[in-house]
């Protein structure tokens, strides 16, 4: 699928040229996955295990009048039925969200979105549990639903969170960033000002594995073991301690193999809590795994931003300022996962890759009768929305100025010598060379030729579009002094042990959902210590076995835990130096390091390998004072800053003028994630993100009808792209290391998701230029594209 510029002779295992350290090696975890030997939450079967199923609300907004569970309890295989009232007794009816709000675990007073949790049945098998849901009698008093965020603040809008004392409207927050007065002043005197409303519709992470848990509460020891689909096991442990009142040392969270996360598995969902309650109540392990419709309708969503953007520039195309107001639909509970003090997360990076004089953004968050969430979803906490806004706005400006969009970007980039660069909303970008990446992508694309081809096609009435986007990502949350999730700082621990024979084990707080951690982190240690990656095991996903840390999301694993791993390996290397000195009867200062070995300066034949040193450490060598008899170390890494990966994307589309169907013909992605540990894994992350981008740009949306029904409750309705919708990805890269990261790596997990949607939409709008189209909102489905061609482009919400 890929244009590979640096493929070595043979990437297969067993190749003598195989890198010990960074380089293209096959993933260590793949033999397990490709042979079907992965072990996921739903594979867990414990003795005596029961099965839970959730009764969900059929309507979006309704008072709960009564629940009658008699018939369900009479089912021969049903063991327990739990309702909101039962939870009230346990003080568990409401749980704190990740955004200083609360969320109902089970409805006690009022249903607030379709699919909300109403009751929990525990039965001998999953079939009985599901059947028994139909035996619960619930009476609802249906209320008018509010699903249109634009109407959320109307005086006559139904108040969704009327359980909160004193609440008379649906406003969650008003938040702003940047200098409003300075921005307005620049706008007032600018030659050119263009504005555009743009909608980033509600989409869903839709991982292949849905959410689920197996709770096993041991009444004798008081210990809760909770197997969970979670991206953040340690954070969950602390939260469970706080929510459920179980002492933290009596909680073990295990996150086994995870079938995709994309932010969907950051939060704590009612189902997890219900599995725990079910286990405590029945004294037996309880498994709960949601089905696809439950996942799509209730466990979190992403985006749902209505953005009003404005850009100011000189006639010559020097961009001066940017401002925006956003209406953010957070659903029925504010459960957004994000680590900043800002309710809109990283959205204020909307100044993008350009050197501006001023910028201002404001965001108003509202409640609606929709599922809560607003999770990261491969967007680094709202960077996706921010990048979409600025990259569409720049294109809108290019059109207004009649300038080439690539040229306009080149004219306005932050220059390499300006880094570290403080943008107008408080971020300090670590490093970048934007022009180089942009020019490389243009070269790979054959940009001039494409424009020529487009001009020829236009003559013939054919619709071809070329879309450019340039993004600056912000990942690796984050410095403890600025970032936390419900009070937990975001430093990550790492432990490394080198066994006597020189094989090693690394223990990490971050858990992989498919990113290839077992390979990447082994390669980091390999690079630092010279131990082959296959001799290094990664232990992760079990809070009883790993050091504390905040988890995998927002592309933070390599920027934070990757740094921790490099540093812990260096610590071991320094310790090895002391031990080698003792073994070689030399002063450590007289030793020199080459990959895998300390040797005596000037006498390379006198040296000790890491394996020899490990054996020495655990053996009988007389160790220097203060040196323990092992080759182990641990660190906790508090990142001094975030990292700022970037990239230049070019997309080529063809649009069928008769039907409005969009075909992505080519996609060129140049990414800069700093130091590249395993290029193959990086490309895999990019391919996935680009595919995701095609989905969002062309087909994905969770819609609601006026009655509040979710119209995206199955994969027949909520479309995600297949191999048929995506082109052969053409990838390239530049390398601008992060100056503050121990190995210069920046993170790549979400770059393509962030960068690709604007490139695709820009291409579609470019294709439709002959029809006078200057903007259309996602998703660019055939019907919506055709409407735009008729001059009737409409926002999706």
């Amino acid at each position: 699928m890929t244009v590979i510029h640096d493929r070595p002779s043979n990437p297969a295992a067993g190749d003598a040229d195989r890198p010990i350290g960074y380089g293209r090696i096959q993933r260590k975890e793949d033999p397990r996955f490709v042979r079907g030997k992965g072990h996921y939450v739903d594979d867990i079967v414990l003795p005596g295990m029961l099965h839970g199923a959730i009764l969900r609300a059929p309507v979006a907004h309704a008072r709960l009048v009564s629940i009658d569970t008699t018939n369900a309890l009479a089912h021969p295989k049903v063991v327990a039925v739990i309702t909101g009232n039962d939870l009230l007794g346990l003080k568990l009816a409401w749980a704190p969200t990740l955004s200083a709000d609360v969320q109902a675990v089970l409805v006690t007073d009022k249903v607030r979105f379709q699919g909300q949790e109403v009751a929990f049945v525990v039965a001998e098998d999953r079939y009985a549990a599901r059947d028994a849901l139909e035996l619960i009698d619930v009476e609802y008093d249906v209320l008018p639903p509010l699903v249109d965020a634009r109407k959320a603040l109307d005086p006559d809008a139904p108040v969704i969170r009327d359980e909160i004392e004193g609440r008379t409207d649906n406003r969650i927050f008003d938040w702003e960033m940047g200098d409003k007065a300075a921005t307005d002043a620049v706008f007032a005197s600018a030659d050119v000002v263009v504005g555009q409303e743009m909608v980033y519709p509600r989409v869903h992470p839709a991982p292949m594995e849905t959410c689920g848990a197996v709770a096993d509460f041991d009444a004798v020891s008081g210990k809760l073991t909770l197997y969970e689909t979670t991206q953040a096991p340690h954070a969950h442990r602390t939260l469970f301690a706080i929510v459920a009142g179980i002492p933290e040392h009596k909680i073990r969270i295990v996150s086994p193999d995870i079938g995709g996360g994309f932010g969907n598995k950051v939060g704590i969902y009612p189902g997890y809590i219900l599995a725990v309650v079910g286990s405590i109540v029945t004294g037996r392990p309880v498994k709960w795994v949601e089905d696809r419709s439950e996942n799509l309708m209730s466990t979190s969503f992403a985006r749902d931003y209505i953005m009003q953007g404005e850009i100011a520039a000189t006639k010559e195309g020097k961009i001066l300022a940017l401002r925006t107001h956003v209406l953010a639909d957070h659903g029925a509970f504010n459960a957004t996962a994000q680590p900043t003090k800002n309710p809109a997360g990283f959205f204020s990076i909307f100044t993008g890759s350009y050197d501006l004089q001023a910028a201002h953004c404001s965001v108003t968050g509202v409640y609606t009768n929709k599922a809560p969430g607003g999770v990261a979803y491969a967007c680094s906490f709202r960077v996706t929305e921010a990048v979409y806004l600025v990259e569409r706005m720049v294109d809108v400006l290019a059109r207004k100025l009649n300038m080439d969009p690539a040229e306009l970007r080149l004219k306005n980039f932050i220059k390499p010598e300006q880094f570290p660069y403080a943008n107008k909303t408080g971020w300090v970008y670590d490093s970048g060379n934007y022009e180089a990446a942009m020019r490389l992508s243009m070269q790979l694309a054959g940009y001039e030729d494409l424009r020529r081809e487009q001009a020829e096609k236009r003559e013939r009435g054919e619709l071809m579009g070329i879309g450019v986007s340039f993004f600056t990502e912000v990942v690796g949350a984050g410095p403890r002094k600025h970032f936390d999730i419900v009070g937990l700082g975001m430093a990550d621990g790492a432990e490394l042990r080198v066994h006597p024979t020189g094989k090693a084990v690394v223990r990490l707080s971050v858990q992989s959902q498919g990113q290839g951690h077992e390979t990447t982190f082994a390669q980091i240690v390999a690079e630092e210590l010279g131990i082959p990656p296959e001799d290094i095991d990664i232990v992760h996903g079990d809070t009883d076995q790993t050091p504390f840390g905040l988890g995998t999301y927002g592309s933070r694993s390599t920027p934070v835990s990757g740094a921790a791993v490099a540093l812990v390996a260096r610590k071991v290397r320094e310790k090895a130096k002391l031990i080698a000195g003792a073994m070689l009867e030399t002063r450590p200062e007289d030793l020199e390091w080459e990959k895998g070995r300390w040797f005596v300066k000037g006498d390379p034949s006198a040296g000790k390998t890491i394996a020899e040193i490990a054996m020495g450490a655990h053996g009988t060598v007389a160790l220097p004072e203060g040196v323990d008899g092992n080759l182990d170390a641990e660190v906790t890494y508090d990142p001094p800053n975030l990292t700022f990966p970037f990239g230049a994307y070019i997309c080529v589309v063809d649009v069928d003028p008769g039907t409005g169907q969009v075909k992505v013909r080519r996609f060129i992605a140049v990414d800069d994630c700093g130091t590249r540990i395993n290029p193959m894994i990086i490309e895999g992350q990019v391919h996935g993100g680009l595919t995701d981008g095609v989905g969002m740009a062309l087909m994905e949306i969770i819609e609601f009808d006026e009655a509040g029904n979710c119209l995206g409750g199955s994969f027949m309705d909520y479309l995600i792209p297949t191999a048929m919708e995506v082109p052969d990805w053409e990838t390239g890269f530049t390398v601008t290391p992060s100056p503050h990261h121990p190995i210069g790596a920046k993170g790549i997990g979400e770059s393509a998701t962030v960068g690709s949607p604007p490139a695709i939409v820009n291409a579609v709008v470019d294709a439709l230029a002959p029809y006078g189209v200057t903007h259309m909102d996602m998703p660019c489905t055939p019907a919506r594209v055709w409407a735009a061609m008729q001059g009737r482009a409409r926002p999706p919400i």
Partner: protein
Amino acid sequence: MQIPAPFDYVRATTVDNALELLARYGPESRVVAGGHSLLPMMKLRLSRPEWLIDINDLYELDFILRDGNKLRVGALTRHTTLLESEEVAALFPIVRDAEQVIADPVVRNRGTIGGSLCQADPAEDLSTVCDVLAAEAVIRGTGGERILPMAEFHRGPYETAVGPDELLCELRFPVRPRSGSAYEKVERRVGDWAVGAAGAAVFLAEDGTVEDAAVGLTALGLDHPVAEAAGVLRGKRPDEGLFAEAGRAAAAACNPVADQRGPVDYKRHLADELTRRVLRRACARAAAQMQEG
């Protein structure tokens, strides 16, 4: 995992046995062929049969057979078999056109032509194909066999002439010389049901004029061919102007409803646009067939 309501299951061994089982278990029983329409509905508990009668062992219903001037296709013939059949592609290129855009390989490997027609989903593609090819449906019950033209087979969305105690056994397609056919569908994504689709079959006279033609629409609120479109073409020499006129007739005749796939005006436009395209292609194919003799 989506879990269906409880049901019982039995495998039929022959057509007669299947009919017996249908009679025995009554209206709460359902035949399952490929299962790609029935099982998803059961998993969503939209369909809750008490008995599933599996007809996948009825190899006697899995055939493609040339019989004089008819092509006979057994109801249990899989989409993939139809897609891959060179004989079918040569006689009725519309079938391959349509099969290429029905679902995905996983569904096509199991799903059957009989199941498709009996499901009678308004967005189901093979109904249109059968309509424009003037197929006949062979239906059997314990009382014997009946053969119905498509106009009588269809009874509206999700309804057909096949009774609860009957089986659709076969489709018969008349083979005519100097003919061409084509199908085109607009979908939001591969494997999605049609936003709208059109199929056409054209039969030329020896002088190259249109002897007869049929245009059908899928997912556009019409479960019979567009008579007006055929009327436009009959007796004339095919050209762009006629295709456009037929397209307008199709747009006027269709009756689409707005849904997540698109609004009414777009779907009506598709009826027009796709009718032109399939007629253009069907006529070209017919002309090519005539040349080959």
